[in-house]
């Protein structure tokens, strides 16, 4: 029977990571144990503390309230912006503009007064709403004065105006608002051919809020996506051909950097998992799950010959800077892995990356693509088997199902897209079958040995 823990501890004394829904279940169970006299309330509180759970679940109730209020404010903001889209010609422009500016400032002042009187959450909610009014005011000024020169500037000032509130209150919701607006600005700028140089300011502020403020998985994901996009687009600008820069202007080198980035993320997850804080362990689980999904997706793409042909045919004009950035990311990954005591797995991933890229650079012959494709398919199957075994061994259902899924998808894809010819395809399926049956046999052997011991 597969347990539905989302993560398992490798050390006996270390608490297992629970998914959010199970945390609420644990709190409910612990309360029931107290009522039945199995444990004392103090013991229940200690058990819950161990997993970062609130025994009385006050937090989860107020979280639900806060989410609903936040969404309500979001819709008020959207209603205001949509109303502006109607261009009320009947109301004088000065009245429209000053009315909205007054509404913005008074909402923010009321929010500040709430914070002063100790109602922090209500204050944060009103700051969120005030920031929407602030954005609506910017849109209105652009509309009244027919400003159409450079639209991203308006979005930038909107994001920048939201930022200090996020940093001062350390609220993940306000940081998420500023970061999302910054991401919109980032993409508009990039699509128009400009480089948004101040974007790291928003990412760093979100990192500060993550570090100092309450835990937020959404903000963590926003930070990871923003950092990755910023690095890749910065390299795209550095590696541009001509004076011009375009959206999706990527090179083969970007893929190598992306893989190195995910190895760094994996190492970060290992380091966070080794920390005593339950928030750090939660973040570690999220990061490692997404790193794993990226690895499987990448292997799935590379299980076709097309991408390998493109890689073998690519110009690879920016090798020194590519190796430089990869070395920096790899060095960081090794340092974190060493701190977490997981150097070997991270080093193995880096060596695999180094070998694969070196092989492509030395070969540069499109007819070799099929060899790389076969190797990627075996890697995919091996990863699937490893995930199934790890899933069962550690009781991590996510790994188990992800492993089964990757094996089935590989088999299905290879059935539709036969490598070489029918005989070649049949040979590959036989080898896959042998690998799976071998793994099953090994698994049974291990189980019987454990029973004997």
């Amino acid at each position: 029977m597969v347990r539905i823990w989302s993560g398992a501890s490798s050390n006996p004394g270390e608490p297992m990571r629970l998914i959010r829904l199970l945390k609420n279940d644990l709190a409910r169970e612990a309360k029931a144990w107290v009522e039945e006299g199995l444990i004392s309330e103090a013991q229940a509180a200690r058990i819950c503390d161990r997993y970062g759970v609130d025994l009385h679940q006050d937090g989860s109730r107020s979280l639900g309230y806060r989410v609903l209020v936040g969404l309500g404010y979001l819709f008020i903001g959207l209603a205001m912006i949509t109303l502006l889209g109607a261009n009320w010609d009947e109301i004088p422009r000065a009245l429209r503009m000053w009315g909205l500016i007054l509404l913005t400032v008074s909402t923010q002042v009321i929010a500040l007064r709430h914070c002063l009187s100790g109602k922090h959450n209500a204050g944060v909610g009103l700051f969120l709403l005030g920031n929407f009014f602030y954005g609506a005011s910017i849109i209105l000024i652009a509309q009244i004065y027919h400003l159409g020169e450079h639209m991203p500037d308006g979005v930038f000032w909107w994001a920048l105006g939201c930022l200090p509130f996020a940093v001062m209150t350390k609220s993940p919701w306000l940081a998420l608002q500023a970061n999302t607006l910054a991401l919109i600005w980032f993409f508009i700028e990039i699509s128009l051919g400009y480089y948004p140089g101040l974007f790291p300011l928003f990412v760093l502020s979100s990192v500060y809020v993550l570090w100092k403020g309450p835990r937020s998985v959404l903000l963590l994901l926003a930070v990871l996506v923003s950092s990755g996009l910023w690095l890749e687009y910065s390299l795209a600008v550095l590696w541009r051909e001509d004076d011009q820069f375009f959206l999706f202007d990527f090179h083969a080198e970007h893929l190598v950097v992306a893989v190195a980035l995910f190895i760094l993320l994996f190492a970060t997850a290992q380091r966070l998992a080794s920390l005593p804080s339950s928030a750090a362990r939660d973040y570690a689980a999220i990061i490692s799950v997404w790193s794993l999904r990226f690895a499987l997706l990448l292997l799935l793409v590379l299980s076709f010959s097309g991408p390998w042909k493109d890689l073998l045919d690519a110009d690879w004009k920016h090798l020194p800077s590519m190796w430089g950035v990869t070395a920096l990311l790899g060095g960081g990954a090794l340092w974190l892995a060493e701190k977490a005591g997981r150097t070997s797995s991270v080093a193995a991933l880096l060596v695999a990356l180094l070998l694969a890229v070196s092989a492509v650079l030395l070969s540069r012959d499109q007819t070799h693509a099929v060899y790389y494709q076969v190797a990627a398919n075996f890697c995919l199957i091996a990863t699937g088997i490893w995930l199934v075994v790890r899933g069962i061994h550690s009781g991590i259902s996510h790994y188990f199902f992800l492993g089964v899924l990757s094996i089935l998808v590989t088999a299905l894809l290879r059935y539709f897209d036969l490598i070489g010819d029918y005989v070649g395809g049949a040979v590959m399926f036989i080898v896959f079958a042998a690998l799976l049956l071998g793994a099953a046999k090994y698994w049974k052997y291990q189980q019987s040995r454990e029973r004997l011991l």
Partner: protein
Amino acid sequence: MKRKILLGLAAAIGFQFLTLIGMYLSAQMPLWTGEAIRLEAIPVDPRSLFRGNYARLEYEISHLDIALFPAGKRLREGEVIYVALTADRRGIYRFAGVSLKKPQQGRFLRGRIAGSGFRGAISSYRVRYGIEAYFAPKEKALGLETDLRKGGIAEVMVSKSGRARLKHVSANPAK
């Protein structure tokens, strides 16, 4: 709440207020201090989810032939250019020249090279002057589309630095 955070939040509110005032003044300044010129405009009619209905206008000076610029120099997106204008006998301002440096005299507009989205050989640059969007309620925008079908006249206020603000658009009586 700590005094430092309180002051920081108050400063953040002040920053938002000053940003809005700054935007208002920067938008209003050419209208207060600029001189009026008239340009022939051709309307296109898009709709922005965030900004509402507006007529997108194009001008004779919205596309400039690549041969007008120094040979061998490919302009970058966002690069600032200055377009000199002279009035014809009807008082409509027309293209008189283009330079990468600000002219010392005469009427001119400050524009930016806009992205074409495609790499490779091009015959002209697209230039934006900040006078390409005329916002209006839906009915008025649709009416403008009909009125300006054969072309329109845009009344534009231009500051000494060449920054322009669109004041009004009307049908072109000559067409």
